[in-house]
């Protein structure tokens, strides 16, 4: 299985662990992430305005490149996934946006939303299968109580993201179970971490993160996992007395034994 892969800016810089272990684990599980040539930053937030085209173009370029390769498009960063998935929805359903974008880009074949966009976790669940992953685990994370932190971008709006139940998601818990860990379900796992507002209002982000941590700890979590670099930042840097936080790909690589191979 070979997928087109859109890493995004942050995975090339501050979030290299999300990317690196995702690629290493993919190899161990028998699928390949082929980085798109000349991809451009997705913009990190989905442009909600109906009358904006320019801010959607980089996503459409990635989507069209992936279609031309005949591949599905995989993302790892929650924000990239959110943006590209929703722009793809616009290109399928919004005739006005579709026409304007194609008029501007003048692609050889107009893009009308043909590419299927998958988050890495969806590849694990729907293409590889959690049962199969469980069989490949070399170092089960037995006895480790781990809370999934979903945040907003993977889940909402669920009509467009189609990722999981937005109020009671289970994909990361199922993933953790496949690795042999004990998932800890807590109410705040799909609440906001403070996001980009941390830039001008740190105390607000800190208040929000403390509520999340308090809730996760009360439910018995020893650590949290996330798929989003900004969530990881807020949960780590803005917490008063936080639990440790890792990317889900770090745990996957650890359980599959690819971390020790690379370290050796």
């Amino acid at each position, binding site marked *: 299985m070979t997928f087109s892969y859109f890493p995004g800016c*942050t995975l090339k*810089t501050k979030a290299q662990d999300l990317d690196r272990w995702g690629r290493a684990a993919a190899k161990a599980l028998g699928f390949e992430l082929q980085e798109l040539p000349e991809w451009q930053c997705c913009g*990190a*937030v989905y442009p*909600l305005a109906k009358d904006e085209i320019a801010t959607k173009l980089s996503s459409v370029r990635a989507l069209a490149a992936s279609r031309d390769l005949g591949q599905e498009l995989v993302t790892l960063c929650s*924000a990239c996934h959110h943006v590209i998935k929703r722009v793809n929805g616009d290109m399928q359903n919004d005739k006005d946006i579709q026409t304007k974008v194609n008029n501007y880009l003048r692609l050889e074949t107009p893009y009308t939303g043909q590419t299927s966009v998958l988050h890495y976790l969806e590849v694990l669940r729907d293409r590889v299968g959690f049962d199969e992953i469980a069989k490949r685990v070399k170092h089960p994370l037995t006895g480790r109580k781990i809370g999934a932190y979903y945040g907003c971008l993977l889940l909402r709006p669920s009509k467009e993201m189609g990722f999981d139940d937005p109020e009671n998601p289970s994909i990361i818990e199922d993933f953790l179970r496949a690795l042999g860990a004990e998932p800890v379900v807590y109410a705040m796992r799909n609440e906001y971490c403070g996001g980009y507002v941390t*830039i*001008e209002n740190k105390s*607000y982000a800190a208040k929000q993160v403390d509520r999340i941590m308090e809730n996760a700890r009360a439910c018995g979590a020893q650590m949290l996992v996330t798929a989003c*670099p900004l969530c990881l930042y807020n949960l780590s840097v803005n917490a008063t007395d936080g639990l440790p936080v890792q990317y889900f790909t770090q745990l996957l690589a650890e359980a599959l034994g690819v971390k020790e191979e690379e370290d050796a």
Partner: protein
Amino acid sequence: MNDMIQTIERIAGVNPRKCMKCGKCSGACPAYDEMEYHPHQFVDMVETGRIDELMHSKGIYTCLSCFACVERCPRSVEPAKIIEAVRLAVIRQQGQDHLKPEQIPGLLDEDLPQQAITSAFRKYRK
């Protein structure tokens, strides 16, 4: 005033008149305490043309685009899009950027992901 209502509705692409005033959006909003007008009020004030007040409110910069209101609104009003439209009506004006490139170096710390700066730039300036 009608012009302004139309501008906001055009940018947002949603219809505030569908709102049934149930307040679910504000109940779900994590930024509720940070906003002087809450999501259901935003919807109502756009409908009734009190847009100038919204354009001067701090809440347009504290909405986190978490989409909790979008998810839970039973009438598909999508309040986050209305708040975004009001913010855009402000920052699309000459000299109204809420974040300026000169401010960026002072905001960085060693761990801050690029994603944070890119997002804030997209949300706060044109």
